[in-house]
């Protein structure tokens, strides 16, 4: 091997390692439901996109029946599947047939991923998964993390922008954020409480992050209390995502080390203060 060729190889190896690390970093991307309108008119059709990305800039994910575990919309009258064309973007199209808060929910089947120790530890830090981080730190040696992740995304829509009708509710997602107030009934700066549940039970001590589409760099963070509750005073109107991640040790024999659940809730907050609505 000639010397310049050897250097060439080394450069490529370094490049490959750097880029493989970079590729791993995208594992911490959020996943959310992005409707074509948060305040559609009654009777209108709404496109429901599934989006993956950061800072509320998302790549659309086409509808894939193989990975959809649940894709539903809940209204005052009941819950029904969100229809759509396989392979289509938007993943779902639904008609708004009545006023009242619409709750769209999506849960994916788990997908597996392998992450380098550095990437895994970085993302545990970003998502506030301190318990897992401590377990990883205590474990002998550093090894590739094998993870199985599921998306648990919701969107809250307010037909005709009717502020006072309807509430968020649990759709039975494994990890789920449930807004305790109708976000369309509050104004910017007013308190919006959420409860985070895991397997329908309150999840305490979890890091919940709120990101505004208008000002994504200014992330709001809070830990859930013992009742799984967290309260944000969202300072600006417009579209928001509230998100949380929960991770548990995988069941023996599952072929992975960790199982994670990625909850999100997207909605729009009206600009300007509104009179406090009853909780």
């Amino acid at each position, binding site marked *: 091997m000639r010397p310049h060729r050897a250097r060439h190889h080394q450069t490529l190896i370094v490049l490959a390692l750097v880029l493989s690390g970079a590729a791993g970093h995208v594992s911490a991307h959020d996943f959310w439901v992005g409707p074509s309108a948060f305040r559609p008119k009654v009777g209108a059709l709404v496109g429901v996109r599934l989006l993956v990305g950061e800072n509320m800039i998302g790549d659309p994910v*086409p509808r894939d029946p193989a990975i959809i575990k649940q894709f539903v919309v809940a209204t005052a009258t009941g819950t029904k599947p969100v229809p759509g064309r396989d392979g289509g973007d938007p993943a779902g199209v639904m008609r708004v047939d009545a006023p009242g808060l619409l709750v769209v929910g999506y849960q994916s089947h788990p997908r597996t991923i392998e992450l380098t120790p550095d990437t895994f530890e970085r993302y545990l830090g970003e998502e506030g998964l301190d318990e897992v981080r401590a377990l990883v730190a205590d474990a002998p040696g550093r090894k590739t993390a094998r993870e199985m992740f599921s998306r648990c995304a919701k969107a809250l829509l307010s037909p005709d922008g009717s502020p006072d009708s309807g509430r968020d509710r649990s759709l039975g997602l494994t990890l789920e954020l449930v807004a305790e107030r109708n976000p369309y009934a509050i104004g910017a700066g007013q308190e919006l409480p959420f409860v985070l549940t895991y397997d329908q039970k309150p999840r305490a001590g979890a890091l919940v992050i709120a990101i505004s589409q208008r000002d994504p760099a200014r992330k709001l963070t809070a830990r859930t209390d013992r009742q799984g509750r967290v309260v944000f005073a969202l300072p600006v109107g417009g579209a928001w995502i509230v998100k949380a991640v929960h991770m548990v040790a995988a069941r023996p024999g599952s072929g992975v080390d960790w199982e994670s659940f990625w909850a999100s809730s997207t909605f729009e907050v009206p600009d300007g203060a509104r009179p406090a609505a009853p909780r």
Partner: protein
Amino acid sequence: MARDQPRRADALRFMRRPAARIALLLGVLVATGSVSAHEIGTTRVTVAFTPSGEYDIEVSTDAAALVARLESAAGQPRSGTLAAEDLIRRVEELGPQWLGQVRVSFDDRAVTPRLEYPRHRDAPVTDDELFAPVVAKIHLRGPIPPGAREFRWQYGLTASTYGLTVTSASRQPHPTEWLEAGQVSRVYSLGADSRESPAKVALGYLALGFTHILPHGVDHILFVLGLFLFSPRLAPLLWQVSAFTLAHTLTLGLTLYKVVPSFPEVVEPLIALSIVYVAIENLTTSELRVGRLALVFAFGLLHGMGFAGALAAADLPGDELLIGLVGFNLGVEAGQIAVLAAAFLLVASWSRDPLVYRRLVVVPASLLIAVTGVYWTIQRLSHW
């Protein structure tokens, strides 16, 4: 000779391979480093190498996400929801900035493509389907650098897994490769799509022609030595070599252009037999007659068909046929001249005395050549 052809062709192909091993290494590293199996998004990258030696890469991606990411990266306020035409206009405005997220490289050297948006002009950016997303179709185009053998792609502006499909004018498309943001694609060999400079191509075939004689073409070497040993005088040698060269040039070209069919199973034993003939005739006469010249010409025709087989095994692309033919033939001539020059230097001192030269050089060497020729004839016939 026929048995040598695949080996030589393999050797030629192997010249193009070192970086393939780097690609394998890279692929393994990337694969084992961190395989990020994300949701597959809608971004698709299609790479085409045109017959005119250009690359044409189409990146099809969600326009809104692209604009938002670029505006965010530049610290600009987000445009928000835009009409399709405005969104596409914004994509084109931000094109130069977007280019910074792309790395197109040939032989690991990045090139700067030109940006074009032909499908924004010629086709609707959305279809009639409800809520059909606005899709940006960005083309990256440019000439494939002369001599380039390998292509690689890297793209950073995506959060989802995207598909890369490399197509080629001369072969089936490669299977779609699924990539994450920042991940370097595997190495794609350009093969017949590479466009080397004509001089470099000719030089490559010249080298192939030369090595087809020296050191690989022992049968041709013995035939040329047979001509050399015929007479110690220069004139008969020049006549014979000229007739041989003219003939093999003729059939090399005609066979390569498929004017004359190739029957290696017939030609190869006949080539061996031609060696036997010239060597035996060297034992009987040193006076050049028209009959000998005609036979040398006829044998040249056979050797030309053999050369064509070797050149065809190199799998030269159609548009390199003429340049390959000329280069290869010149290489063969250079090889012949080298053989004759070496032979002359070796026996120059002995050839001063014709009798000694004949007894100690011509007769034993011709016998040896004839015996070898007989052996090859039998060997090649046995392969029928």
